[in-house]
């Protein structure tokens, strides 16, 4: 663990919330540290921040920070209550390079004076999203949350927006980096488009799959875009990803079958080209 990191974490928390009143929600802490780290890197100062890209942008892995310099707790026993981060015991500064600690303090104070709202921080970190598709997936999920789930009737404009998000992701999907879930991506994208084309009123049913798929994508992103994390952590995440991908396949299968059964109710004979595809299908059974 880096002593500069301990120093930075303690003083960031102390500066932003000097009376330890719980003004630093965990998500804000991650973003503030990430932005600070970014600024420090530009000054050639490396605090060895252990972080990875995840669902809501950078996620700091606190378990790799000295536990005495910060305290994490929920402000009520309610499990839904968001965690807050408090400063802990001040780490010793003896032996740390003065020039660097002064620069860190300077950047922390500068950032505090900017009074960045959490929304602004989200905007700033997402501008640095390592891949555009990660941002678009989040926007799609937000669109579902804000415009689809609570609506009794979904407007055409909101349906078109979903298609636009899907088209955008399709243009920016990185097959090379997200290869292990490429097939599931294609199938999920098509399942969502089938729902849009045939049963827009059932869009709410696919929201859970959307959230699970975004989690898969975000987990893969955390493996691709991270710094200062040990090999064991990577292996643990990779194993978790494989397990969740397999669960997702089962759920996607079930959803797909439900939609196809509904569509079969209105379908008559398959058209000429679907018929050709069925004949090809018979030949393909020999390959299986």
């Amino acid at each position, binding site marked *: 663990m880096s002593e500069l990191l301990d120093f930075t974490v303690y003083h960031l928390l102390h500066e932003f919330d000097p009376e330890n009143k719980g003004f630093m929600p965990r998500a804000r802490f991650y973003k503030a540290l990430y932005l600070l780290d970014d600024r420090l890197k530009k000054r050639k100062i490396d605090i060895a921040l252990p972080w990875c890209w995840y669902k809501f942008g950078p996620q700091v892995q606190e378990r790799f920070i000295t536990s005495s310099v910060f305290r994490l707790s929920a402000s009520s026993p309610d499990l839904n209550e968001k965690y807050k981060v408090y400063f802990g015991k001040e780490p010793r500064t003896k032996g740390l390079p003065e020039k660097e600690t002064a620069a860190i303090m300077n950047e922390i104070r500068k950032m505090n004076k900017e009074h960045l709202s959490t929304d602004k921080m989200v905007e700033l970190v997402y501008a640095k999203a390592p891949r555009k598709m990660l941002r678009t997936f989040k926007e799609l999920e937000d669109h579902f949350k804000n415009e689809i789930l609570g609506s009794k009737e979904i407007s055409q404009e909101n349906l078109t927006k979903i298609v636009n998000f899907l*088209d955008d992701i*399709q*243009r920016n*999907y990185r097959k090379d980096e997200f290869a292990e879930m490429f*097939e599931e991506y*294609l*199938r999920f*994208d*098509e399942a969502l*488009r*089938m729902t849009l084309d045939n049963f827009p009123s059932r869009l709410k049913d696919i929201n859970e799959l959307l959230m699970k798929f975004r989690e898969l994508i975000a987990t893969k992103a955390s493996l691709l875009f991270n710094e200062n994390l040990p090999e064991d952590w990577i292996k643990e995440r990779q194993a978790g990803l494989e397990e969740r991908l397999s669960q997702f396949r089962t759920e996607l299968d079930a959803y*797909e*079958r439900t939609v*196809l*059964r509904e*569509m*079969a109710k209105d*379908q008559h004979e*398959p*058209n000429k*080209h*679907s*018929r*050709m*595809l*069925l*004949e*090809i*299908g*018979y*030949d*393909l*059974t020999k*390959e*299986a």
Partner: protein
Amino acid sequence: MADLFLDTSVLLGYIFPKDRWEKNSISCFNAPQKKWTSSSVDAEMQKKCAYVRRKVQKDLLSLIMDLSQGKDKPLGESELVRIQNDLSGSKLEPMVMDLINEIKTRTPQISEACQRLREVLRGFLTYVQQHEDELKNKMTALELECWTRLDDYTDIQKKLAKYMKNDDDLEILLDAHDLALVRQLILDFVTADYDDYKYFESEVLSIVKINRIAFLHEFKPERVT
């Protein structure tokens, strides 16, 4: 009248209709005889159906994704070349090219061509799902009774292995043998895989308790043995 044991190829002929197989598969299901299949057949059918669904989905959706990369514009020569390259050597090529040739004269937008491809895929998947469900329903209603074998028949298995290359085929033959033995049935084994049995038909029949191997392409449902 012999009962019928339908192997995987017959069930697949019902799900993926092709030429005369479709008609003969349907006539099998409509035959007056009692019809059987087995849990090994069911498992193999599900495995093969899943493979075909995934393969067709992946190939077509990848093509659609590839075509949708740039801005939407009329389908031109460069897209036709791309389609041919993407599908080179793929079994899907004749179908896709037939569709593209049908619509290209009126130079549709790429997005329209993609939507047509999606509709073809959806038509295919819907049909497959519907027919998979129909088979399941037939099994549930015992219209097509599914037999589960409990005995390994190690000796018979060894003898059959000389002639049968495929382990799944071997297991299925043992299922039919077990059914005929346990239920004391005269059983015709119906298959579309002529090539797998034609050379060793008499040898296989001398090992297992099956009345005859009926090939789907010459299947006559009314035939009484």
